[in-house]
């Protein structure tokens, strides 16, 4: 055990020393912002669950069934999330981390190396699920007036679920890594995870839960739930957790402890089997992880000549970097599932507009259609910011250890950053305009709103992309194992806050004059001179703001990047 603790110590010390790091100030701001967002999310989750449970309590006969079913669904969802998160984390911790060469050169038995890494992985993969599950249990405890025993049971049940998920994932990963290189398994897991998430969202969305406000549909749901009152499989860890929580809520301590014991004995047995299996086969898989296997899709060699002829006017270092950027992006298999996920989410985004129940509203439909269209501009720009945060912000950090090539290359940092801008600008513009035009077509908005939305998004995209590139260059993280995570850094938070502020400002500037134009048209009147001046001034300010947003962050990024040692 001494060795396991020694292997865990660097992590604990790193955490403790984080406050003394060179960038401690930025780190504190980042933690504060995260804590703020987390607290908001936490409070929101508590409020929703509390209201739902209070509502359920008002439903005669079925209130408790609904609450129990909800608890069961929540725990199954948490358990699925835990399994998926554990697979990804344990692959990284056990096979892909950069410190593994050092760790494996140490005189520590492989089973203990596995145990230390597995414990680290279990904590990393489950802490967030645990933190965000607390409001759920708190709301159950308050609504059902539960005592401390319920909260203790909830904590212990959740902890055992985390250990079971981590042990199952660890076992699956250690076994799979003997057959396939770990990098390939991670890609497959991320891809399958993306498909799973997308399928869940799509199936939930296509069920159209908004129809449940219709009393007839709701009564059908009650009948359905009554039919589903049968308990879950007694072999599932989530069933043990649900049963122990229900028993604790009902004050049946003995029953609650029995189900807890089932859960904990399973966790302990799985952990033991995991360590025993790892002692036998973990190192074989680790050795295999250092092997690069054949690519699933062979590169097309020989097409370069034709491509060069096609793009010969774009020769030079800038073109070389642009071509490199595109190649690296598409050859990185971890990007594929995310592109797939974005595609799916865009389909759902548009689907939402096609099923908006505008007809049932007491407000005039034409008014609502155009109001939604206006708000949709902001929403599409926020979607654009989120995608830019994932792909554009880390673009400079992705250069990693190879950034010296940029420094040594016959290209200015300014040109290098504008190449990055150009590579991401076009696809993001196409995506944003597709979202706006397609959703406006589905909303059947007036031509004026269509023109305003398309033009505004056209002006905003360069600003958002430039902010992503600029702030990514100003706060690069060339040492990160996963540059995509750099968006959670101080610079990433600054980018998201400023981009959101920029979008909000553009929307606010346009809201007043657009409303005036729309109402004048609606009432069949023409605009007054003052209204024309307001319209012209606001739109001129929007143009100036968008130009500044496209230029200033790039300059800021270039200056900061030049000052980097």
């Amino acid at each position: 055990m001494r060795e396991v603790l020694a292997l865990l110590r660097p992590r604990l010390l790193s955490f403790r020393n984080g406050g003394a790091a060179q960038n401690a100030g930025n780190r504190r701001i980042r933690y504060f912002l995260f804590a703020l967002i987390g607290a908001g999310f936490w409070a929101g989750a508590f409020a929703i669950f509390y209201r739902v449970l209070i509502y359920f309590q008002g439903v005669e006969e079925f209130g408790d069934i609904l609450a129990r079913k909800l608890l069961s669904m929540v725990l199954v969802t948490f358990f699925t999330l835990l399994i998926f998160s554990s697979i990804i984390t344990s692959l990284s911790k056990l096979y892909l981390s950069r410190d593994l060469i050092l760790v494996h050169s140490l005189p520590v038995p492989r089973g203990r190396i596995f145990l230390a890494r597995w414990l680290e992985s279990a904590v990393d993969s489950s802490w967030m699920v645990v933190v965000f599950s607390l409001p759920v249990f708190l709301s159950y405890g308050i609504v059902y007036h539960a005592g401390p025993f319920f909260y203790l049971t909830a904590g212990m049940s959740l902890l055992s679920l985390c250990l079971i998920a981590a042990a199952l994932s660890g076992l699956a990963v250690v076994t799979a890594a003997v057959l396939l290189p770990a990098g390939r398994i991670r890609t497959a897991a991320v891809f399958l995870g993306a498909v799973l998430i997308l399928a869940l969202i799509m199936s939930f969305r296509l069920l159209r839960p908004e129809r449940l406000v219709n009393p007839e549909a709701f009564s059908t749901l009650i009948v359905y739930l009554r039919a589903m009152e049968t308990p879950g499989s007694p072999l599932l860890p989530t069933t043990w957790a649900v049963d122990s929580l229900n028993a604790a809520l009902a004050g049946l301590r003995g029953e609650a402890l029995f189900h807890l014991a089932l859960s904990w004995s399973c966790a302990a047995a799985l952990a033991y089997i995991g360590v025993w299996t790892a002692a036998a086969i973990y190192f074989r898989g680790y050795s295999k992880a250092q092997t690069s296997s054949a690519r699933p899709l062979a590169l097309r060699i020989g097409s370069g000549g034709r491509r060069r002829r096609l793009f010969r006017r774009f020769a030079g270092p800038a073109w070389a970097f642009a071509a490199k950027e595109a190649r690296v992006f598409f050859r990185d298999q971890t990007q594929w599932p995310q592109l797939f996920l974005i595609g799916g989410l865009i389909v759902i985004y548009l689907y939402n507009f096609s099923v908006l129940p505008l007809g049932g509203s007491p407000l005039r439909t034409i008014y609502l259609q155009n109001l939604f269209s206006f708000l949709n501009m902001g929403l599409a720009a926020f979607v654009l910011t989120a995608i830019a945060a994932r792909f554009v912000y880390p673009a400079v950090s992705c250069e990693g250890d190879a950034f010296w090539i940029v420094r040594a290359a016959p290209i200015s940092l300014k040109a290098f950053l504008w190449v990055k801008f150009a590579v991401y600008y076009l696809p993001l513009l196409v995506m944003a305009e597709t979202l706006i035009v397609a959703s406006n077509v589905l909303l059947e908005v007036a031509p004026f709103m269509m023109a305003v939305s398309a033009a505004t998004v056209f002006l905003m995209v360069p600003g958002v992309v430039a902010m992503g590139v600029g702030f990514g260059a100003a706060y690069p993280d060339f040492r990160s194992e996963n540059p995509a995570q750099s968006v959670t850094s101080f610079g990433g938070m600054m980018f998201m806050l400023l981009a959101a502020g920029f979008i909000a400002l553009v929307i606010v500037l346009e809201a007043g004059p657009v409303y005036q134009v729309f109402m004048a048209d609606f009432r069949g009147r023409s605009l007054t001179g003052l209204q024309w001046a307001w319209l012209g001034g606001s739109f001129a300010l929007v143009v100036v703001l968008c130009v500044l947003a496209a230029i200033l962050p790039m300059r800021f990024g270039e200056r900061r990047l030049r000052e980097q040692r």
Partner: protein
Amino acid sequence: MIELKNLTKRFGNTLAVDRLNLSVAKGEIFGFIGPNGAGKTTTIRMLAGVLAPSEGEVSVNGISMAAEPVAAKRSIGFIPDRPFLYEKLTGMEFMRFSADLYGVGDGSFRQKAGGLLARFSLHDWADELIEAYSHGMRQRLVIAAALLHDPRTIIVDEPMVGLDPAGIRLVKDLLREQARQGVTIFMSTHTLSIAEDLCDRIGVIHRGRLIATGTTGDLRGTALLAEGDLEEVFLRLTGQEGA
């Protein structure tokens, strides 16, 4: 003492190391040279127990790496080419970490760690986070940590990369001193002058195969050269003379 028997490593269809047989005696400094991609780092990693061979055996200080990896590793000081260090630990904390894992007792730790850090000019930096260290300082820290437990064999991949002239002199002196005390040293390097200056024997690996071993004089004979330094011998043996 190091024994390699039919050591082979395949990466998919690529044969990185091909039936390597080698014996390095106690107190000997053995240099391992070869062109890029010849299999040096792969061999070093198998020697350090970081990579499993596809076939063959590694034995260090009479202990089989396959049968008793923990005992074998405990007797080794491994210095990788690109040292990964925990950025958020201080130099002294990293030394403590190494000491804990290699079983260096509390009684001797302070004195030994302090002495090594002082010798590598890191004493004033002992309580600074490693993220503030330069590349050369990190390299010095890794070497210091590798010596903490008095290893019987030192395995080192490109020891001089990133070191300043004073650091290179220090490491050369240190390796000689260790060898005199009976420590076996297996060193891979591209710096042929250092190999020639420091090593008792040199092995040349090319395309995964050990094509020659011996002193510079022996290698000159193998390359059928009447005179010339190790560079000329190396280029002749690896067929890169015209390169």
